[in-house]
């Protein structure tokens, strides 16, 4: 139903509509309507029944994408690999079908990185074409392998990723890379690159700037304010999308600020991990895990049904880490069967503590493991990693700080 039975996208037509003759460009068929572009640039939609195509004035052809794709950029020695997984950041809208198509074209960032072009060579590659909400562990594993391969030959990797599940991917990559000899930076955009105000351009630019630095971590690089000109690199295991639409949606929750960029100048924080001598990468993840959001309607049956087939359950508990005592016998029972329950908080900010109130102590007694201030999504990714690598010492590894996923000090960090 793309309208080919009427005309090719982009062909010039003379049509008649309600007694009026118009010269138009054919765009597409949409259900029972045809979409045309007038010479003024406006699109109009006419019902199939009311429009008559009189003649084709000009075949489609001049109406094509004229941009030139540039897949490598720069002349310097630092080698950076830009890998795109789809999402809105590296895409062009195909107006004929309404589809968003990924692109390898780097020409749009040419101007903004002129000053560092002689320090690096950038190459771009599309490795996947998927909206981030459709990403699953098999995608993480596939992408992680490609990132690993890239990092074996290059000095840094920038991964273009949809923002919705970016922090899950960043967490998973963090654990899968036990050692890394250069930065792995995920970036995305909150305003798609088909608009002049898109944050995509600056986010990619900032990621490339961070890629020049001696960093041995997985991070998320996005705007740090709703104004342009300021970006931040957040440790993957401490980053979270906290707003549906704002450019500065990603926040370092309590800790995890690796560095900032203001007016093209990079400054790194003291608390960063420097690169390792070599890469150590494992692509093993166990998917028998899940996040259970406790709420006043939660019941033991509910929890039992959720836990079926899973080995580790991350509970997003209330406040300090509490769940209703209705659930406690079930947690005890399932723990005895060999399942693991780990506790994070719906508050996101702050540490869980199961020793302050009786209900917390009962939850401990039922066999649950508190995860301090680990973010729930990070705890999920970590569970998958630990289940695959240290199934017999699950609790011990979950509470050991491997990649900075636990903020050791509870600092008073800005807004929350």
């Amino acid at each position: 139903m793309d309208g080919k039975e009427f005309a090719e996208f982009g062909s010039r037509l003379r049509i008649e509509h309600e007694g009026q003759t118009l010269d138009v460009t054919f765009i597409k068929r949409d259900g029972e309507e045809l979409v045309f572009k007038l010479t003024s640039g406006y699109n109009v939609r006419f019902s199939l029944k009311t429009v008559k195509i009189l003649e084709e004035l000009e075949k489609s052809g001049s109406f094509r994408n004229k941009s030139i794709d540039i897949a490598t950029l720069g002349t310097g020695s630092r080698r950076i690999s830009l890998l795109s997984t789809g999402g809105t950041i590296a895409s062009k809208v195909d107006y004929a079908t309404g589809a968003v198509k990924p692109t390898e074209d780097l020409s749009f960032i040419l101007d903004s990185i002129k000053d560092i072009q002689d320090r690096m060579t950038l190459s771009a590659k599309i490795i996947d074409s998927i909206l981030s909400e459709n990403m699953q562990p098999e995608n993480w594993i596939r992408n992680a392998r490609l990132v690993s391969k890239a990092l074996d030959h290059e000095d840094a990797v920038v991964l273009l990723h949809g923002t919705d599940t970016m922090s899950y991917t960043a967490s998973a990559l963090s654990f899968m890379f036990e050692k890394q000899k250069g930065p792995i930076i995920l970036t995305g955009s909150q305003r798609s690159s088909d608009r002049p105000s898109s944050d995509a351009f600056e986010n990619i630019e900032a990621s490339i700037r961070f890629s020049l630095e001696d960093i041995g971590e997985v991070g998320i690089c996005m705007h740090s304010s709703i104004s342009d000109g300021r970006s931040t690199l957040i440790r993957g295991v401490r980053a979270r999308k906290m707003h549906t639409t704002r450019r500065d949606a990603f926040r370092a929750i309590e800790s995890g600020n690796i560095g900032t960029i203001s007016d093209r100048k990079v400054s790194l924080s003291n608390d960063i991990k420097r690169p390792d001598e070599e890469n150590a990468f494992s692509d093993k993840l166990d998917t028998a895990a899940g996040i259970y959001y406790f709420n006043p309607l939660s019941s033991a049956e509910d929890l039992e049904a959720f836990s079926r087939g899973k080995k580790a359950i991350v509970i997003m508990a209330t406040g300090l880490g509490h769940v209703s005592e209705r659930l406690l016998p079930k947690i005890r029972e399932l723990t005895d069967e060999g399942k693991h329950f780990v506790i994070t908080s719906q508050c996101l900010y702050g540490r869980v503590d199961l020793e302050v109130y009786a209900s917390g102590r009962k939850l401990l007694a039922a066999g649950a493991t508190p995860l301090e201030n680990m973010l729930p999504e990070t705890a999920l990714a970590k569970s998958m990693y630990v289940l695959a690598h240290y199934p017999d010492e699950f609790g011990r590894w979950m509470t050991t700080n491997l990649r900075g996923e636990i903020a050791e000090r509870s600092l008073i960090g800005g807004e929350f």
Partner: protein
Amino acid sequence: MPNPVMIGLEVHVQLNTGKLFCRCPVEGSDEGSFELSRRLKPTVGEAGGVDRAARYEEERDRSFTYLCPENTCLVEYDEEPPRSINREALNVSLKVAASLGCTILPVIECMRKIVIDGSNTSGFQRTSLVAVNGSIQTSRGRVGITSVCLEEDSARKLSDGGDQVHYSLGRLGIPLIEITTDPDIVDQDHAVEVARKIGLTAMTTGMTRRDSDSIRQDVNLSMGHGRVEIKGISRISQIKDAIESETERQMMLERVASTVEKRGGLSSKGFHFVDVSEYLRESGSTMISGGIREGKHVYLSRLNNMSGVLKSGDMRLGREIADLTKVFAVQGIMHSDELPGYGLSGKEVRELFKRAECGDLDAFMIVIASKAKASLLEKEIPSRIEHILALRLDETRYFSDQGRTAFLRPLPGAERMYPETDLEPFRLSKEEISSALDFGKLPAEDRIKKLASDYNISQQDASTLVTESKLGLFVSLSSVLNARYSARLILQRLPELEKKSGNKVSEEELRRLVAAIKERGLGELSLDASLDLLLKGLSIEEITRSPDIEPLSKEELAAIINEISRIQKQNNAGEMIASVKKRTSRPFDPKKLIEIAESIKK
């Protein structure tokens, strides 16, 4: 004989319905609590091309700072996708379209029109074609209406520092109806008549915003040298000035072109910059020495065959070049027609002629600019001169404070339009279309007559209510107050009180005050008194609680009269009223006062 002039208009009318794609109010003070800053990049349009006007703006490489006042939200900051369209605004645009005899489109596609001068935070203006193919009758014949569009208004520019532009977002997103005419207008007086008529038609909906720039006109003009679009004419009388100034300019350029042509025309290779900073370092020109101190350079180029056409007699090609450099934030330019002068001596000018290798008919120009700007201008200046001398004059211009038109940017093409991917097309219901068509049956003049007879007010008052965009207010006040009283209140009483106090009452405040007075069961006397208090700065809550708005009862009036009469004899009614006013701040009906006084006397 000059070429016949073809003139078309674009009339833009703001609506007071609330913003188009968010739920923010149209009004709000510019007092902003914060600012944000952005850069913009042109993107590839639907057809794969980048609009030339957009590309041009990018070369200027500017950054934009936005003041965010109280009537803005994440949508204006381009931090949230647009909310659904304001249906009321859409329906008003349909009514206007129907009144102009247009065919309404049943399905409306919202488009993005790329505008990267920073006036839209998104980098585009959302605009929807609502109706096409109408016409109006005028004293000089029929004028076709090409289209009626519903757009979001742009941000208001506060200052332009060249590389840094400052806007306020208060105006961004206000619904704007754009009415475009065919080029059927015969001259400047006719243009004024057409603009008036279209404006009046929109105003009879009662939903137009009342503000100094709430109705703005663009003029499209062609004398056979391409279409020139003159933007931003906020007063109807300026339409005439803009057309006159632009036709004079084009006739002047015809003479300039033919003069240069006779001398052998323009050699495009002739233009290139030589750096003369060293030679002029010690010159007496403060513009030059100041520029050099700021790290700029002084560049010289020959202008072939252009001696005398830059500035002499009525020829002003120099100004055309200056308009261009100003767009690139370069203020420092001079040319040989105005030299010696500006601190440059005759000897220095002779040397510059020599260095530029000028022949007898050649001129030269100097530009004081940074290296980067100069390399841009080295391409832009000869290209603009070439265009002008070939009389390819199509471009976007604006009507400046100096009462002339000036260069703004190249005309945008159809490349700048692509669909708004964040919104589904709007489908109009049969009821929406038929109610608009019903409204459109009466021409604007007849609708004013009907307004007068429906509300039993004078034709004059009805007309003033419409042309001052107070119709909406009148209709809403008339639903609770007497219509004649409402008209008098809006057109006479309130303006008088405002003038006297030097303060203003907003429409919103007036509506709330009237509702509050009515709720207390009080009438017109109290309303008059409460307006006084409002203008003195009391809040509506304070006013409704105040005993000062309660009219004096018969008994209270009688008591005061008795008291006054005891002290002093009152000679006439006027004296009596004045004396009572001195003794009380509460309102009373003077007629009633006289009646009571009469009855007491008896």
